[in-house]
């Protein structure tokens, strides 16, 4: 068996070609699903592209989904650099949303920009706090974060249902949600911006949280690669023994990495509460936390990779709903399956074809070098 010398593989092969081939394979398998369901796969692709790019509101929806995936993808990536599998993005986002709401409603007497700033901080603090408990247990007792964060997703969901039903429910309504925040606190939406330029468009959930997501990406890049904390987190992640030798505390870094991760997941609450619902709605994280894991894996845990990966999932979410509208045989669950296939190929089976592809290119390049 031939082995690939990793150092000889050009960066664009491992970071562009391999994910691209995995994606194409996933789309091919998804196409088979659609074909078996009795619809034309090419028509489905056309609908996805039309749905996510074809008209301005559709594109806005795509970017709205992208925003959420960036937050949860970054959250997973930060913890992963410390070799922690934070599966708890879902719960941390939920609790983060609680933080946003409580801050916004209790500080509504302050000027709006300050409320926004405090609400963002509230999201980070609440999300981080929810991640802190599993982190503490991992650091001191060795309880594996994969297990504890999954359990904390359930605890968060139950806690929020309890709060939404018994404590902070809007008593004038029947549904499990809170009262709405004052309208002046709502984040400016894409519609509002378009109106400034005299363009009238219909509703879309896209709002300035998108810019926050880009800022968060820059922050993560800077944190992980340019600061001492990121350096220490990566050292602990790659080689805990060596970190201890260098006087870097694994205990401290596990907690820091998880809290930053939780805080980033919490930011999803900003998009959903300040930007879209303007109140807490039961179950608003809607699986973004889990999809974020796939986004991070596909984006190789780097903000520059996470952005296109998040965008791709945005296209699938938005384009997928377009397909389910127009194709009677394709249900919403069909698209959950398609997402599953993509996650499977780009996450779990990521290394399935990697050696062959890398080998192919390495040999090709050697051949060229000799010729």
């Amino acid at each position, binding site marked *: 068996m031939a082995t690939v010398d990793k*150092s000889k593989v050009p960066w664009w092969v491992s970071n562009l070609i391999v994910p691209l081939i995995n994606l194409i394979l996933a789309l091919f398998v998804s196409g088979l699903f659609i074909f078996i369901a009795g619809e034309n796969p090419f028509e489905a692709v056309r609908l996805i592209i039309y749905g996510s790019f074809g008209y301005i509101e559709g594109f806005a929806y795509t970017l709205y989904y992208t925003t959420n995936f960036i937050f949860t993808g970054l959250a997973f990536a930060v913890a992963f650099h410390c070799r922690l599998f934070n599966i708890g993005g879902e719960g941390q986002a939920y609790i983060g949303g609680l933080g946003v709401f409580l801050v916004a409603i209790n500080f509504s007497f302050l000027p709006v920009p300050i409320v926004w700033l405090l609400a963002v901080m509230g999201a980070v603090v609440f999300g981080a706090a929810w991640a802190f408990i599993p982190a503490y247990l991992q650091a001191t007792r060795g309880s594996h974060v994969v297990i504890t964060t999954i359990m904390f997703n359930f605890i968060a969901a139950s806690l929020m249902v309890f709060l939404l039903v018994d404590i902070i429910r809007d008593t004038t309504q029947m549904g499990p949600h809170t009262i709405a925040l004052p309208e002046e606190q709502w984040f400016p939406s894409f519609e509002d911006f378009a109106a400034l330029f005299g363009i009238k468009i219909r509703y879309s959930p896209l709002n300035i949280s998108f810019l926050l997501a880009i800022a968060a990406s820059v922050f993560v890049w800077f944190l992980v690669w340019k*600061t001492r904390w990121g*350096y220490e987190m990566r050292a602990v992640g790659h080689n805990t023994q*060596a970190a*201890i*030798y260098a*006087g*870097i505390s694994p205990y401290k870094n596990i907690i820091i990495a998880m809290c930053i991760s939780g805080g980033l997941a919490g930011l999803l609450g900003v998009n959903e509460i300040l930007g879209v619902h303007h109140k807490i709605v039961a179950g608003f994280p809607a699986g973004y936390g889990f999809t974020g894991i796939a986004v991070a894996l596909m984006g190789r845990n780097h903000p520059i990779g996470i952005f296109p990966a998040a965008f791709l999932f945005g296209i699938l979410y938005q384009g997928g709903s377009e397909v389910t509208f127009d194709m009677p045989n394709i249900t919403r669950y069909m698209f959950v399956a398609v997402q599953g296939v993509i996650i499977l190929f780009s996450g779990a089976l990521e290394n399935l074809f990697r050696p062959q592809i890398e080998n192919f290119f*390495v040999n090709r390049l050697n051949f060229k070098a000799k010729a």
Partner: protein
Amino acid sequence: MVSPILELTNINKSFGHVHANKNINLKINKGTIHGIIGENGAGKSTLMSIVFGLYQANSGTIKVNGKEINLRSPKDSIINGIGMVHQHFMLVENFTVLENIILGFEGELVFGKNLEKAKKDLKNLCDTYKLNIDLNSTISDLSVGFRQRVEILKSLYRGAEILILDEPTGVLTPQEVDELFKILRSLNEEGKTIVLITHKLIEIMDLTSEVSVMRQGEMVGHTKTKDTNKEQLAEMMVGRSVLLRLEKSQVKTGDVVFKVEDLTVKDDLDVIRVKNVNLNIRAGEILGLAGVTGNGQTELLEALSGIRKVESGEIYLDGKKVSDSQNFLDPRELKEKGLAHVPEDRQRMGLVTDFKAYENLIFGYHDQKPFSKSSILNHRDIIAHSKKIMEEYDVRPQSPNLITSNFSGGNQQKIILSRELNENPKVLLVGQPTRGVDIGAIEFIHQRLIDMRDRGAAILLVSVELDEVLSLSDRIVVMFDGKIVGEKENNNVTDRELGLLMAGVV
């Protein structure tokens, strides 16, 4: 005239731009012990991996018993009677010896008479070659030396006539090395051909009858072992003459800067590994700590450098107490006080191999100015610093952006050494500074340690290489079973005396 059992002609192999083997010709005669020696990265392991079918050569022919063969996988090699014992063993830890050996053949063997026959054959092999292995013991219960024997037995059982051993002594204690050599000699007497890959001259002189020398991917010489000597081989390996004995100036020692009193340390399993150890090291002095691996040296070093908790006793640096069972400074605080530590196991502890070289060159000092200012890493200064010390310590290739695992072992060691020595520490703890390092780099590393000493550092050198301890140290202490069992001035001690102390005989 003996006929060659294995003949390689014009073998070429490259990995990308690296030409690992250039036009290699090699004849290995039947019934010999043939040594292949060369520095790390000279291409020895690549060549043998080609013979074992792990890699395919770009060009060239391989003949076994005069017949040209095509080796596409290890299976082909096994059929042709070639067996290999790798540096890292290929054994299933929770299987028994027997299960490991029949692994891959179990379809025919697991049931009935065949298994009984296999057992009998294996017992016979064990007896013939004095391997002394219990077939029913589980691999994880066996020492490294025994695991290696299991690998040898596995190859023999599969009908190996040529046995290739890749750096077999790297993981063994001196006693285990002796045992291994006995086994290899008895294999040889029974007519097996043995190929020994090593970079240790002493093993070549001890064991082999013929030797081939490789340098930078080329075969630079073949000779009968009895017609050559260590100095000549060393010169062939590095392409110039090397000093095997270091020139050292007279010691000008100062005050005691590092003092250990009555130190006791436990390991992770709560077993006491260091027992009431006392040490004094003066400025300008190298104290050598000799001992067979596993007698508490690792735990001692870890305790002294702040990684492991002290059970009882005290450690003083510059006259001030830095650690006892209640209060202790962590590795970072000790670094600030002028204590540097080159750990025994560079890959496990000294480096983050996935980091870029520049990240490892500031490892442990990354929070100090100018590398980081208010917690933000100062990339430009770090790179400039890295380039400077990589040049000073001759780290090759001189590219700070290269991932550390792509450097050879010797260069990885230089990265650690340059990082730790660059701070001009008052006290330097060094564990196995030249383990798995080639001879050119050994000389360089030794010279640097002597320079540090001459500049007034107090150095504790822990090494299992007796030669190293003898040639560097001013004073030598021997550790056995967690205790210091002897202390000698270096000018009046012999290998024999130390060896007896290390074995716990005296």
